[in-house]
């Protein structure tokens, strides 16, 4: 954990330091332009990367354990897609409104994610068994449906909203000011902690569902809670950063390779490494083009897609399921 914390701190330093506009860090205190750039744009962006990366990675780790499927992640299971559809509806309708202090886009996105995860779970579960193939296929189907829904909304809505949806959907960490990140953390921090508190039970479920049940775990209840938490976390992050793919796939695997299979280590490890990973990926996305920036979602997709295929290939070798 100490190593991962160091990696995270280092990546924060890198994330803050690089960008299309160089900021002289010593000038923050003297030069008002640098200061504004740093506190209004650069730092919030790095923090948003931290929050979203950590969220996606930890939900990826939890979903993999819950479904006993190393290819599960919020993106492949359609949870991000569902969240994106919910959020697009909110954007198209111009819902900047809030309900009881909660931004409506959070609520809509959470609802979409929750519908998606419930659908995928219901379809893939046959009795006590979650069929791994059916799980991923229903995830793909939900993603396609959600994407079609988003397209429909883009088509029907006015061009400026459509463009906003398009830009946001690819996944980007554009943010102004620290307030949005703070709002997200109000929801995310408790959800993270609750999810981590379930890591022992998830570890037993990852080994075997029946065994977990006879070891005193209420599997159904644990499943419901973890599903809701994952939908909440993914919903909130999608509504802020779009559907950034494959973070939840790559990061937990990297943590497993470094520290073994124990979920009680994989989950907090994914939280830290996921944050570092997305900060660095975003730093790369901002600097790889000499003019302008790539959306971070495109970079994670380009990196993560091949990793997914490699995992699929490797998995076929020792488990014909």
């Amino acid at each position, binding site marked *: 954990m100490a190593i991962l914390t160091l990696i995270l701190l280092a990546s924060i330093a890198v994330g803050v330091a690089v960008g299309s506009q160089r900021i002289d860090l010593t000038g923050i205190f003297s030069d008002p332009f640098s200061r504004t750039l740093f506190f209004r744009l650069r730092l919030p962006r790095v923090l948003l990367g931290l929050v979203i990366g950590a969220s996606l990675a930890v939900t990826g780790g939890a979903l993999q354990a819950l479904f*006993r*499927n*190393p290819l599960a992640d919020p993106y492949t299971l359609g949870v991000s897609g569902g969240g994106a559809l919910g959020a697009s509806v909110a954007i198209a309708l111009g819902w900047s409104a809030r309900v009881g202090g909660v931004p409506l886009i959070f609520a809509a996105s959470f609802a979409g994610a929750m519908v998606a995860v419930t659908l995928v779970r219901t379809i893939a579960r046959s009795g*006590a068994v979650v069929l*791994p193939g059916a799980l991923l296929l229903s995830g793909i189907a939900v993603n396609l449906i959600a994407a079609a829904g988003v397209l429909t909304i883009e088509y029907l809505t006015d061009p400026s909203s459509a463009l906003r949806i398009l830009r946001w959907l690819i996944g980007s960490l554009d943010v102004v000011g620290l307030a949005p990140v703070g709002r997200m953390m109000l929801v995310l921090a408790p959800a993270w902690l609750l999810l981590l*508190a379930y890591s*022992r039970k998830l*570890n*037993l479920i*990852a*080994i*075997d569902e*029946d*065994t977990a*049940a*006879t*070891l*005193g*775990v*209420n599997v159904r209840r644990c499943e419901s809670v973890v599903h809701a938490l994952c939908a909440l976390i993914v919903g909130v992050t999608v509504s802020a950063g779009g559907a950034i793919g494959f973070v939840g796939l790559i990061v937990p695997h990297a943590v*497993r390779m470094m520290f*073994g*299979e*124990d979920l*009680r280590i994989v989950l907090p490890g994914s939280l830290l490494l996921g944050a570092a990973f997305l900060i660095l990926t975003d730093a790369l996305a901002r600097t790889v083009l000499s003019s302008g920036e790539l959306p971070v979602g495109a970079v994670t997709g380009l990196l993560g897609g091949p990793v997914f295929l490699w995992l699929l290939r490797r998995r076929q070798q*020792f*488990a014909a*399921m």
Partner: protein
Amino acid sequence: MSGPLTFEARNLSYAYGGGPLVVNGVSLTAAPGTMTAVIGSNGSGKSTLIRMLAGLLKPRSGSILLGGVALDAWEPRLRAREIAYVPQSTATVFPFPAIDLVLSGRAPHAVRFRFEGGHDTEKAMEALELADAAHLASRPFTSLSGGERQMVILARALAQEPRLLLLDEPSSSLDLKHRAALIRTLMELRRTRNLSAIMVTHDIQMAGAFDRIVALRCGEVAASGTPDEVLSEPRLRDVYDDPNVRSRRIGNQTLVWADL
């Protein structure tokens, strides 16, 4: 906890979905320190019965009592300290090392938010040795053969330190030597820990070494009693519904086979 508890199933019935009853009015009792074998042909309801006893299936009717208290009224973690379940097979996707799997058996004894301590690791190693699988400790579970997996899963149940062991065909992938070793281990644990066991098996030799045998046919108890009573030729022909079944006493064991 208090002293040893009697485990009792009364009139259990079960049907999958709207299908026919696959277990119908089965009762059995496991007093502390008794070994009960459940035999019967394929599809006779053995696994369904043991899954109900383990709390994995909810009986359609009837009741399961542990120490006079309904099984589902027990706090799950406390129940897990009394009863351990050895499934037919465990399909773990992630390459957990065998020792981690065995350590998971310590979960019902663990303190919240704390990792297993040296004491738990000791118990886990002890259980692996009892199951004759100590040499597998650091191997990834996914790389083990079917028989090796069964040994590790048995160790996991033993690390749980239950007073009742429910086993679902624990020897189906074991070689002759390890089958005998399994029986010896169970008998040894009965002597040292007053362990009781209910085991579903196709292995008549193993069943013959137990105290009692319950024979199922089409979900109902066709015969029940000591091995001498149940393993007689006419009884077995009735249980398996096959006139070719033969049975002979040799020494203190019963040899059962079917004419080809």
